[in-house]
């Protein structure tokens, strides 16, 4: 049996004295899976994603990714974990406006201290592969939403992460751009990329995911393996 890439055991996350954002959640994700986390606003989807990304720590329970307990990591180790194993795509792209598209894409590799030549080769390859190489010298503010999300995906893939996490990747996009991003994620999964995405977009889940979990009030209420798309 294949070792899970992600394993959450009894994870809870509480903020102040209110109800838990996550309540005793256990979940495993195998390598190569594409998991869509669905649920209404405030259900705890993004909290779940943040815990897997090492951006947040559970109040109780354990989070293991690629055999590493990330709930016990300090800030610096979490940062190193993210740049080595995780690619993050956000709803509002989170590109740095004062950096060019190219400089945005190479940033994770530069933070990791990668060799300049290899970094440039990889960034060029990604930009070309995602069809945005003509915008390499442009600033994000001049691109369409779909193009910006492609840049964000390129940046997320820069360090060849084992896991791509996407938080509402089509949430801020128009229909055409949303379709463009869905197609991109589907292709990435087809190439073997493990993906966990949080979305309201059932079309996205249906097209890109091999499995869905429904989160309601901090609990997983349904875990469904989808039929592969024909």
């Amino acid at each position, binding site marked *: 049996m294949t070792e899970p890439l992600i394993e959450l055991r009894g994870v809870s996350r509480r903020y102040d004295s209110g109800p838990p954002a996550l309540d005793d959640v256990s979940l495993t994700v195998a390598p190569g899976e594409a998991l869509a986390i669905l649920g209404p606003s405030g259900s705890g989807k993004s909290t779940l994603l943040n815990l897997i990304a090492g*951006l*947040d720590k559970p109040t109780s329970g354990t989070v293991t990714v690629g055999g590493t307990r990330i709930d016990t990591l300090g800030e610096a180790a979490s*940062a190193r974990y*993210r740049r080595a194993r995780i690619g993050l795509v956000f709803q509002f792209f989170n*590109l740095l406006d004062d*950096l*060019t598209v190219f400089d945005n894409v190479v*940033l994770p590799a530069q933070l*990791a201290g990668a060799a300049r030549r290899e970094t440039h080769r990889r960034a060029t390859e990604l930009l070309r592969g995602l069809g945005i190489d003509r915008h390499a010298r442009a600033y994000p503010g001049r691109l369409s939403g779909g193009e910006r999300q492609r840049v964000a995906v390129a940046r997320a893939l820069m360090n060849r992460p084992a896991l791509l996490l996407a938080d509402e990747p089509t949430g801020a996009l128009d229909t055409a751009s949303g379709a463009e991003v869905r197609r991109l994620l589907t292709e990435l999964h087809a190439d073997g990329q493990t993906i966990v995405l949080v979305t309201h977009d059932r079309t996205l889940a249906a097209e890109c995911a091999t499995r869905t979990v429904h989160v309601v009030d901090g609990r997983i209420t349904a875990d469904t393996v989808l039929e592969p798309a024909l």
Partner: protein
Amino acid sequence: MSALTKVVRSGVQRRWVQTTVITLATAAAVCSGLLGVGLLVASNAPFDHAFAVQHGAHLTVLADRSKTTPAQLTASGDVAGVTETAGPFPVAQVMVRPPAPPGAIGTPLHGPVFTVVGRGAPGDGVDAITVTEGTWATGPGEIVIAAGTGWHIPLHSTLTVGEGQGAPTATVVGVARSVSDTADAWMAPAALAALKAPATGYQMLYRLTGADSAAQVTAARDAVTQALPAGAVTGSRSWLTVKQEATGRTAVFVPFLLAFGGLSLVLSVLIVGTVIAGAVGSTLRRIGILKSLGFTPAQVVRAYVAQALIPAAIGAGVGVAAGNLLAVPVLARTEQLYGTVALTIAPWVDVAVLLGVLALVAVTATAAAGRAGRLSAIDALAVGRTPSAGRGQFAARMAARLPLPRPVSLGLARPFGAPVRAAAMIVAIAFGAAAVTLAVGLATSLNRVQVTADHSGADLVVDGFAGDPSNPDPGEAGEPTTADQDAVTAALDRQPGTAHYYGVTETDAVVAGVSGLNTLSEFTASPAWSGYELVSGRWFTRPGEAVVPTELLRATDRQLGDTLTVTHDGATSTLRIVGEVFDPGNNDFTVLAQAAADARPASWQVGVTDGTDPSAYATAVNADLTALGLTAHVIPSEGPDDLLVIIDALAGLLTLLLVTVAGLGVLNAVVLDVRDRVHDIGIHKALGMTPRQTLTAVLSSVALIGLVGGALGVPAGLVLHGILVPAMGHGAGTELPAVVLSVYHPVQLAVLALGGLVLAVAGALLPAGWAASTRTATALRTE
């Protein structure tokens, strides 16, 4: 509580960094302003106060008793312009020898020459003398010493009054103070008449109807001179000269305090202005919300001005307290100079400085907050949400190409994204660097002034009077003789460790064109190594050449190359002036000249080579000198002058204030920058930037600013030093030699410039730490 009050209170409490910066910046401005203005006022006031209380003499005239009579002198009080007189009092120039120090044998051979005036009582008219200790001298053998002569003779000590064997003695019965500086000591007229003084005459004191200008005093002196027989007036002194001498030392403070006060004030205004401008810029959305809720533009401006004025008022209170406390040691010294007048910083100065600085803060804050008032609610909301335009993109692109770790290059590009904020930080750091450069230069200059003024470069002194080794009390063994010059030089030349030496003889002399007795110092060689510094010209190289202090050149209206007639020991000689020497702080003028080849110096000053222990040297050389009846003594270190200590301490304190304020300016700017960029910091962290890398990026963002600030501040400090130190010299009535003016070494300047970087990094350290420790998820959620 009104809505406006709530907004102001929440603004003051939530933005505690901004509140702290305004508080401290205002405290620094008030404190240094108070020191500047307060000491300026205090340094002038006590003399005038004491002069009024003692009914001081505007004009003091010395008359030759062989050419005029007491009756003629009394009648001179009737000339036009004179309102009141005192005198004539008998006056004599007398050598006063102190009692032997503990353990010493016999009376010292030499002592200072005092102007001793015969007065039966302290008087209550012109020059009403204040007896500060003991009683007035009324009987024979009693003497009262003037306070401030530099002598610390206990009451009831016995002094020898006069030269040679058999000179009479007098007991110190009191210490008194004359603000008109009419005497060094007083005796009863009959007791003074019993002395065999080399020069005697009458002293006459005048009060004038108008004495505000030198011309008025000169006119009165001329009228008195005309009223007396020809040649009767041998000297005169204006109260303006006395005042200049009395306030000269405190006047040294004036340009220094004005410069530091001005620097501090400008820096504080800059910091308060940028803090408020930054507060407005970083809370545009809040302003938009307030306006959308119905706040008028005036209310918004009032809210932001109040957010500045509340901490500024607290800071001003702290500054007033600190300024008054810091002024205490300086004022205590001034009080010591005048004795009778208790000094504090005038209350009106406290009020004026406090209100002035608060007004400045209010004006600065109103100007900065005006933008908040002018913005429409929609614009404020829109601008508050929209990320800033693509400023600094070119710099970011260029920085990305640098072969540096990415956090460093990200930080280096940051100032170009917020150029106004960066410029404000550069100015703050430049002020700090200028202040440190100025303080370092000032301390060096003042220390060099002390060495050169004290001529304290010699390590040992050899008394050139040869006694009879078989007689332990030279004071009782007949007239001493000076040792043979060749024998002394041979002994010193033979001794290993001798670096320099010269013989010197000091004699009382009359310099043509200057009233009173002065000093002629004749040297066997140039004394330059012992701390004497030339302002211009050269040292004497042969007999007949002289070097004189600036003050003497001014008093005699001479220039280099002119001649000077000096009378001493009954002989008159003409000396050519070849150099101008720095010799401040001496009440009489000293003429430095080359001694004749066969001179027999009264003492020898010796400097030892580096690494030679002066005590061991003294022991060794005394083996030779004892045979000549001479002894070498190590010159004890006197320690720094208290005035210099005070100035050094004040410079250090004011610099610390300025550097702290500059650092706070950087801190506030970086806090605003980090707050503006917190979302971007979150993105960086999400992409894998570690806390250490975040720290590096934030600190790198101020590195260029620190370097540029340092590079601008150090030359500014140099220029200020170049202006300030000569101005302080002028305040003390002297020109300064190059060794005092040129004090910076290139390496020192480079280090000082790097101090800008240190200041910037120190100011940014706290917000950089906050940025590093900010949780990624929190930062990403921040709007």
